[in-house]
């Protein structure tokens, strides 16, 4: 636990001192939401119908775009070897990075959710907001779990930017489908449906985080 805390502390300080990554990620999300808003046209019903899909397409793209940030400091300063030479379980390095990545995405989501609700005519207050919050957290955990693993795997490859989406998108599809359906159910007010998709998301999260924790060591050492 000590080393996970140290990695989180270090990454949060770095994020605070170089906030341009977070700002550009937020800007990217807003631009995407805005682009979809104009593409879907002025029909409010269509906008509400497409809302959950637009939301998760945006966050999936942002998640992969932001993946470069996960090991950015290690890449820029060559510090991955410093982490690997420390007496720290590789899985714990993964967990530290995964938790910071999840926090980063949740901050971006919290900042972009109000403009999303306004643009797509989806009032998010009270119970609905809480339900959507739970769906956002569970969907983001699954997304970031996969993205962090592949970000570590492709750290030393030259075609990283091209490889990362190719590897990540097929694997996060179940998470994104689950998150889209759960969000749609939140917007339409069917709690039973939300619960069903929410349970599925949780099972994806547990599976992805466990597998990534197990295999991260092999991914970064070979």
């Amino acid at each position: 636990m000590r080393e996970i805390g140290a990695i989180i502390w270090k990454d949060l300080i770095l994020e605070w001192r170089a906030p341009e990554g977070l700002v550009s990620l937020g800007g990217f999300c807003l631009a995407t939401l805005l682009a979809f808003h104009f593409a879907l046209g002025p029909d409010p019903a269509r906008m509400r119908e497409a809302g959950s899909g637009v939301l998760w397409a945006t966050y999936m793209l942002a998640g992969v775009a932001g993946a470069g940030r996960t090991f950015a400091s290690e890449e820029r300063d060559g510090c991955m070897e410093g982490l690997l030479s420390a007496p720290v379980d590789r899985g714990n390095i993964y967990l530290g990075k995964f938790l910071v990545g999840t926090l980063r995405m949740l901050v971006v989501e919290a900042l972009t959710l109000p403009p999303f609700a306004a643009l797509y005519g989806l009032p998010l207050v009270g119970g609905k907001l809480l339900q959507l919050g739970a769906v956002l957290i569970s969907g983001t955990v699954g997304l970031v779990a996969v993205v962090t693993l592949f970000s570590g795997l492709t750290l030393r490859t030259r075609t990283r930017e091209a490889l990362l989406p190719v590897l990540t998108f097929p694997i996060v599809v179940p998470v994104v489908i689950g998150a889209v359906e759960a969000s749609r159910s939140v917007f339409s007010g069917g709690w039973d449906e939300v619960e069903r998709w929410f349970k599925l998301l949780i099972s994806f999260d547990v599976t992805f985080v466990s597998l990534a924790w197990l295999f991260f060591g092999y991914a970064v050492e070979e």
Partner: protein
Amino acid sequence: MVEAEGLGKRYGWTWALRGVDLEVGPGERVLVFGPNGAGKTTLLKLIAGILRPSEGRVKVGGADDLEMRRKVGMVGHRPLFYGKLTVRENLSFYGKLYGVPGLRYRTEELLERVGLRHMADLPCEVLSRGMAQRLSLAKALLHDPPVLLLDEPFSGMDPEGRRFLEELLGDDGRTVIMTTYDVGFGVRWAEKVLVLVRGGPRYLGPPPRNHEELIKLCE
């Protein structure tokens, strides 16, 4: 203290290092020498636990994996510091990873020892190569490891830093395995020499009488 048996590392189809047997006793000083691409850095990274061997095994103080890494401090080619963190924060971060007891005191002590106390609150990105190398040395000593691995430690060091490092290498009592192209110093300093050529061991034994003989071993 360090035992390697049939140690090898392969990248794809290419062997970077193969068939290295090495036994280094406590407090022994070993020079690893060879031309570029001989596998010197790969060998040190395997002993440091940064890389996983493709064949063979390596142990430090009878331990492998996590415990092995605890017993080793390494100064590599690159300084391995986060540019946006200060000198003190970098040491503190690595100290937390190693679980160093009395970390605050230990950090200040080492900063004083390597002559970086006055720069402790500066971000690492402003350090010169020589200063960063001194900080690397402080990081390697932070957890007081019995084994020190030094990969080209003199590169970029000013005379003062070099003097400090030579003092440390003189009578510190640690097991030290070093690569350097400063052949004259290496031959004087080492008690044992391992010569690597194209990933394979060419010579293991007492140091030759002078650096010309050492260079001949690589031909």
